[in-house]
């Protein structure tokens, strides 16, 4: 009964839920800000991409741990 694969799958799924919620909230407020002030759209887009990459970085921490679980156990 190999639980390593199960743990990896569940962990990756939960991590993706967190990242999806975070980036969704980020995109929502960025698009609303772009709608309010279209001249600042370029700057808002740049900062949105930076924040999205940081949030994805955290999700990738979880991904790396899941891969470690899946191949070691």
């Amino acid at each position: 009964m190999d639980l390593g694969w199960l743990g990896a799958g569940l962990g990756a799924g939960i991590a993706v839920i967190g990242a999806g919620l975070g980036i969704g909230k980020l995109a929502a407020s960025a698009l609303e800000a772009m709608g309010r002030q279209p001249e600042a759209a370029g700057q808002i887009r740049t900062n949105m991409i930076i924040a999205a990459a940081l949030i994805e970085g955290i999700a990738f921490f979880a991904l790396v741990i899941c891969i470690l679980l899946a191949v070691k156990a």
Partner: protein
Amino acid sequence: MSSDTLVVNDTLVQHSSEGAGGDWMLHHIMDSNYLDFEPFGRILLPHLELFGMDISITKHVVFMWLVAVILILILMSVSKGYRKSLVPKGFTNFIEIMIVFVRDEIVKPTIGKDYQKYLPYLLTIFFFILLSNLFGLLPYSATVTSNIAVTAALAGLSFIMTQLGGIRNYGFFGYFKAMVPHGMPVVILPLIIVVEILGLFTKPFALCIRLFANMIAGHVVILSLIGLIFIMGSVLVAPVSIAFALFIYLLEILVALIQAYIFTMLSSLFIGMAAHQEH
């Protein structure tokens, strides 16, 4: 690295029920001792050892050298283009757009006053990471930055530059003293010191893992989608699978550009925060 490959291969062969186990996928992602030109054969690379440490030349080392040689050729031709006239044309202009982008959008806003001291290092890592990431998308080649040793070395270099930036401006003890904000109650001072020192190390660690995981994830998704054809065993999966894989491929080009930008932006942010602290 070769013994790690063997252990992982054994585990996956035990656990996979079909013949299309993770074997061929891992072979495309991990480092190997030979250069692979699939239907034509392979070139075996030399195995060197120094004092018992394995410094043999592997596929990722060869591609790192290739990226370095191409960068040297491109950037030296760009600097020669400046000798003809100060207003560049053609290829020199194209590279200048990227250099000016890094200088004006990334380095100047985040570091501020003495940004010229750190500009060569930041330009170097920007172009190296960009070219390595894009190289990984070509057939028969390997992604240098999908090797955690390479990204750890890049993050370590950024860490060293951050400390040098802070120590150069504030002196050795002044820099560490400036990490603790003034006007704190003395009781929680040990806690603040521990938190600040931990924060000092988690930032480059996050840089390393972010670049490594982004590069590996793209390749793993593409290989999994194509491997789905073999696992399902029927050709009918192929159009859907290849369409998705093509979409992820295009996304990977975007991710390659974004990750080079993010690594450089965060490195220069950390250098700016260490060199000009406004606590």
